[in-house]
């Protein structure tokens, strides 16, 4: 999930004020409830995340309330400051922060029955470029600086081709979420983008006519999919219950409905070593992975 949820306000100053509000530590919220943090959720999907959180809470007995973070940095920040929180993060921020912050891995979702996904390099149909490497001096749109599929994977891909990624693109535009990246390419604002395969599939399903304007140039991966993690203060018994709830979602009617709405096939338990491929990418890109 890599979409930002913003109130639909026309006045820009009000929008900025809202963002600031969201970034503030919100310790005033009830202590009995814990946060379930998600990042980059579209307004249209907000209710789904709310329903999912409620299901998890009821089934596991661990009451939670949704918090929508601005980006993955904001998400990790929330986990750090609220170690009893649970979050649905991305592989890259998990690898970068899990040791420092003690994030505990609970489960990984299954997309097309696999716990993996790809980073899809897209551009407008009809363009002459055949791969990412051909977009030297052009405009790149990305969803989040810490997004595996939106930023890390394409940069790693270029790095392997001995490209100086700092100078390669003319401008890199933060489109705030994968759908924004897609819209930027469709609107002509950006020449190329790398987006989450899961998000692209959903976009194609909901916007078939617009999707016809896109072409997929490269398919990077597969990579470990976006994990659900817990802060370092969540007890093992709670972790077990949360994991059990996630792994058995397909056995309950409500769980199955949620999976259908998400477009997922279930959840599976994995350990940290599952994310080694992302760790190796980050190391090659010069990131600090403690």
């Amino acid at each position: 999930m890599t979409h930002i949820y913003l109130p639909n306000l026309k006045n820009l100053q009000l929008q900025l004020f809202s963002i600031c509000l969201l970034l503030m530590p919100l310790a005033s919220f009830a202590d009995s409830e814990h946060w379930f943090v998600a990042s980059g959720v579209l307004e249209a999907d907000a209710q789904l995340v709310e329903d999912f959180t409620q299901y998890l809470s009821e089934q596991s007995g661990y009451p939670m309330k949704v918090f929508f973070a601005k980006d993955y940095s904001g998400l990790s920040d929330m986990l750090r400051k609220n170690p009893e929180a649970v979050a649905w993060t991305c592989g890259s921020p998990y690898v970068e922060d899990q040791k420092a912050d003690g994030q505990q891995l609970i489960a990984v979702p299954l997309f097309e029955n696999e716990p993996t996904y790809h980073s899809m390099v897209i551009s407008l149909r009809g363009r002459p470029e055949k791969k990412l490497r051909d977009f030297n001096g052009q405009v790149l749109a990305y969803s989040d600086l810490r997004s595996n599929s939106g930023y890390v994977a394409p940069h790693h891909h270029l790095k392997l081709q001995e490209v100086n990624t700092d100078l390669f693109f003319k401008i890199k535009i933060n489109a705030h979420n994968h759908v924004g990246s897609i819209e930027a390419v469709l609107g002509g604002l950006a020449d190329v983008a790398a987006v989450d395969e899961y998000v692209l599939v959903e976009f194609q399903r909901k916007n078939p006519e617009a999707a016809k304007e896109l072409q997929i140039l490269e398919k990077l991966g597969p990579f470990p999919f976006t994990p659900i993690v817990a802060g370092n203060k969540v007890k093992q018994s709670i972790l077990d219950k949360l994991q059990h709830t996630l792994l058995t979602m397909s056995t309950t009617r409500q769980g199955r409905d949620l999976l259908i709405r998400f477009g997922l096939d279930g959840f599976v338990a994995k350990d940290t070593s599952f994310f080694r491929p992302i760790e190796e990418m980050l190391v090659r890109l010069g990131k600090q992975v403690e």
Partner: protein
Amino acid sequence: MAWLFVAAILLTCASILNYGFQKEHQAAHSNVEKQARLLNKLFASQVAAPIHFRDYFLLWKTIKTLTENSLHSNQPEFADFSLREAAVLDTNKKVLSHTNMKRYRLGTAYKPLPEDIDRLFTTGRNGETVIFRQEEHLLVTASPVVYENKMIGLVVTTVDFSVAEQLERQLIVKYGTAALLMLGILLVLYRWGRDKRVAAEAIASAKDNLQLILDSAHEGIYGVDMNGDCTFANLTCTQMFGYSSPHDLMGRNIHQLAHHTRLSGEPYPEDDCPIYHTYQTGEPTHIDGDLFWRQDSSSFPVEYRSYPIRDNDVIIGAVVTFTDITNRKQAEKKLRQAAAVFENATDGVIITDAQGTIVSVNQAITQITGYREDEVLGKNPNIFKSDRHDPSFFQDMWASLNQHDHWRGEIWNRRKYGEIFPCWQTISAVRDDQTGEIQHYVSLMSDITAIKDSQERLEHLAHHDPLTNLPNRLLFNDRLEHAIERAHRENGGIGVMFIDLDNFKPINDGLGHAVGDRVLQLVAERMTSQVREDDTVARISGDEFALIMEDTKESQDVAHVAAKILSAFEAPLQVDTHELHVTTSIGISLYPEDGKDVTTLVKNADAAMYRAKKRGKNRYCYYTMDLTDAAMERLELQNDLRVALKQNEFRIYYQPQYSLATGQLIGAEALVRWQHPKLGLISPVKFIPLAESTGLIVPIGRWVLHEACAKTKSWQDAGLDISRIGVNVAGRQIQSGDMVQTVQDVLEQTGLEPQCLELEVTESFIVRQTDKAISMLEELRDLGVTLAIDDFGTGYSALSYLKRLPVNKLKIDRSFVNGIPHDPDDEAITRAIIALGKSLQLQIIAEGVETEEQKEFIALEGCNEVQGYYYSPPVPEKDFVELLKSIE
């Protein structure tokens, strides 16, 4: 003067219009500029933060949103123009955002701007807006983007105010229309007076035309006012009501006059009448099946419609149109009757169109065929086809339909679930009265299965004996007739038997008819079991039966069956607790020898049957006595042959064989003889064929083989010079399958060396055999015995076949030797056989040599061995031994 007045009015109007137009034009232009400034300022204020924070995506989204909003028609402040494009430039005139980013890419240079706008990059102040009129209806507006008192960009919008132009055109239209209107009013006043007179004349003419139209209508038409009184009526209406003129109806209440009673005969109040309802409420009505009354008090059924008459939206009456539906009602009644007949008929009715597609069927079709109506509609009647009729049947059917519009006959159809059944069907073509073209085909179908079954049962009863179910005399004669026709065509033979039970009467009389009937049934069964399937056993009468045997080759075949029938009754019949012995007397007549027609054959068979009875019953007699004698003799001989082996009645005679080269005796052929206790020595010509046909040749042949080998061995042991014995082997022995084992057993038992045994097989048998027999001969040869082809030259051997045979010798048939030296052909054949044998490296022996010339000839030709009366006839053992001793 009038024209001056008009001119003055027009001038005044024009001045007023022009003034109004100018004022509105100025107002429209002022509005556009105001709105353009407002829009630009809005853009500039919204994009300041995204530009400052370098959030190009948010900047783009903001421009997109603002553009979409400004294009909404419900934004009254931007109602007079539409936004063509909006560009956000940085201070270097590079594009930061644009409404069409596919054309104006981020960071690229924007197109050249007018000078007044271009100067804003250097001198622009917050709030300042510059407007530049680019084209006829395009305005370019530019506003600086200021953030924290610093200009960070420029918003440039291009608007299209052709909306305002449209407004101007609307003004022109508005004022122009007003001017024209005034002129028009003046003209109208002038013409008003003149047209009034013309209109009056037109109304009168229209009225006359209307009456003409009314009177020419086929329906009755009348009008009534709000009281129901007649205001007009056409001629048809007048006539249908029975009046002489429409004036007779004028002013009279039509309901009371002609619509006063319902169809049922009850009085019809006026305010219940739908026509009254029409002119009261204004709603039209349609009634099918009401009653109108004539002047003469007769009534007629009608269908009518009523419509309100309005004058300036006020109902002033109603108009009614009606038709007399008497004929239609009668036709409907007939149709209902016909439909009832159609549906309830017990015969199936199928109606098709001219192309043969089923359009209607009745209920009976479902009962007969099993198909539901919906399963056959739209289909062709060939769904009922049984495939039992060949194409010519249907060709004849269609020929009859085309010629006579009719066909009838028996046809076999198929029901839905596959059962084939007989129908009696009639098909009629229905033609159009006008054109004569075929419109439909109507078919009536009756299921005659029950009738056919009855017919078949009757047929069966008429031709079969009910007690035994055998064909009766009628059918017997019929079949014999056909058999004779066929035998005549194919040059074949027929055997006819008449079979009478010898002692049936005492059984029937003594034990009762029930037992007698049962006896007859059992007799029928036993007889039937002894004959072929194609033969006919019939019960002619009482205890008399008959048999037809077709395709008989010899009289003996018939005698054989007769003998089997006689044997069949050797065992008693078991009826209830009675064990009954029944015998038969059989008379045989043969086609064509004893007759060529039914009557003669039957008569002669009957006569032969009586002869059999006279001769002692339980026997058969041919009509021709010679045949009977020959058959009896054969039968007796056959019986004696069975016991001959047991009673040691066979003897072996030996005919010596000599080498032509050395003149030495090299062997002998063993020939079987039958010493009949009564008939004396019987030639093998007489009993060998009988032995072969009965299968007795196998044991006889085995005995001969054993005897010959044993004797030869004993002679050898006695020191006599006999190196080889030849034994004839019948085809039947080889076909018995155990010949090889038999020979092996005999050699073992007798101790004779295999090379001393020569087996002779006729050429005619060999050529008829398959590879199986050949392989058996090979096995025999592998035992070490020698093989000779007997009677060579008579069997039509193919040379390629001959070379494959595992034989050592050819025996030239006596018939060729017999012709030497008189018959050059026989000489040539003999010579050829010798040459052939030599070339195939076979030994040659000539048999039947009876003269010196024959001996000389064959010796000269190179034949190896010889046998015949010239040297010695076949002699009994004692004489042969003497011969052997004499050689010593």
